[in-house]
């Protein structure tokens, strides 16, 4: 485990060190000390490696991540794992707004609560939140899974496309074109696998599934005469 201290090195130096990791360094383990809420820590990593951030981080931590496994031993600011492509980001504490926004792939695990707009415009990422999420979560979510073990705030899944949302707790309200759908065995297995990957022991049968009614974004043939 190599240690990088933000009290001694600049953020740019630390991210540069992580980006410069040679292919032979794959799976190297790094520990970033004294994050002090700084922004863009461990952003843009593109190789398999393990990075642990020892404390609370600011905005966009782990953004654009590919392949790396990043653990934040604290709370995360706005846009954690934003536009993640692959790999894994785990937040041990709470996450602020827009967690996992626009993510294309990989797994984001939030062990605490996430704030509003969690998974906004997600495009294939899987997000598992052990706690609750704020309003407008899953807004315009296109692909991937958003698993919420606690409650969801207002307008869940507003204008959702083909992402799938699972919620164990209560939902304050559903957004436009988001509806509850039946849990089939296939969904139960998908959810079970996601919970296992996230390391959470939670009964898949305690969840409800939500998705798109497909009335808002699909062209409806009966409306052909309107144009």
């Amino acid at each position: 485990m190599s240690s990088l201290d933000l009290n001694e090195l600049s953020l740019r130096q630390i991210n540069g060190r992580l980006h410069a990791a040679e292919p032979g360094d794959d799976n190297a383990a790094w520990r970033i000390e004294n994050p002090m809420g700084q922004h863009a820590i461990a952003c843009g990593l593109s190789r398999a490696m393990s990075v642990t951030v020892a404390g609370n981080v600011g905005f966009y931590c782990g953004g654009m991540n590919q392949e790396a496994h990043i653990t934040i031993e604290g709370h995360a600011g706005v846009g954690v794992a934003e536009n993640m492509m692959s790999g894994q980001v785990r937040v041990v504490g709470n996450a602020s707004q827009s967690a996992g926004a626009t993510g294309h792939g990989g797994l984001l695990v939030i062990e605490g609560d996430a704030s509003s707009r969690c998974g906004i415009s997600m495009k294939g990422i899987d997000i598992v939140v052990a706690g609750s999420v704020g309003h407008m979560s899953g807004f315009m979510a296109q692909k991937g899974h958003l698993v919420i073990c606690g409650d969801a705030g207002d307008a869940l899944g507003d204008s959702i496309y083909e992402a799938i949302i699972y919620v164990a707790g209560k939902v304050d309200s559903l957004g436009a074109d988001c509806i509850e759908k039946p849990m089939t065995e296939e969904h139960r297995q998908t959810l079970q696998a996601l919970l296992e990957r996230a390391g959470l022991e939670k009964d898949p049968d305690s969840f409800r599934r939500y998705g798109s009614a497909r009335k808002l974004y699909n062209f409806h043939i009966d409306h052909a005469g309107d144009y």
Partner: protein
Amino acid sequence: MCGIVGLYLKNEKLHSQLGRLFRPMLIEMTSRGPDSAGVAIYRNPVPEGQIKFSLAHDQIDFDWQSLSDRLSADLQTDSRITPCNTHAVLASAAPEQAIQDWLRQHAPAVRVVGRGNSVEIFKETGLPEHVYARFELEKAQGRHMIGHTRMATESAVTTAGSHPFATGADLCLVHNGSLSNHNRLREALQRRGIRFETQNDSEVAAAYLTHHLQRGLTLKQALEQALDDLDGFYTFCIGTGDGFAVLRDPIACKHAVLAETDDWVAMATEYRAIATLPDANNAKVWEPRPATVYSWGAGSPLNEAAEPSAFATAGVA
């Protein structure tokens, strides 16, 4: 942009370090607001029957002592003035309205930036670091403090357009965001007799609260009413004589984070402003919910309606 910060020290042993603990909080928010900065600090309450005014003048060598002497002679009362750079703190036993009228008549270039029993407001254009140094806030002692770093979007970079804005006795507001209906709201408030000194949208929010507090609403009621009437984006931190309150608009676009330990409660636009506080790593950290009033303080005045006289000179910049 803009950055806002607030610190309330629960542990009395830390009161002597308030200015030192608050300094990195404000300065960390420089990148969000390098135009100007300001703070409200609650300290040295005046004895019963007196009132404290925070005054400002554009000239750094303005003769505050002479102003205080003339005011005391004319109003036949005792006053004490403590100059501090472009500002001064006046403590006087004269009636509040009489002081306000006298200042308007005899010293129109002097701006009233705050008043109450314990609040002192200091604000200037320039980097937060420089503003903090010019008012010698590093060694300030007290229980709580709120501050603002400004990146102007709606109006000019001037001292009068800097935050905090006073909204009543010991009450003041700092704002991160922008209001979209401030022009019409300003006109409506002007028709009701509220005076404005700037074209600033945050001054409208302060005046709006002042107006509703004058009508007899509690601070909590006034803030809840604001959710209906203010259009735009905002995170507010409102300093009160006993602590501070926080409110975000229903969409909650503007960042805000709260943190609490056994020793202190802090709010900031970003966590990095809180990270330097003692034991911040182990604090309870969370994001305030939208459209929800949060408050801290001993005997919070949130639910008490003030006497109308408490707002005799409110709506000041």
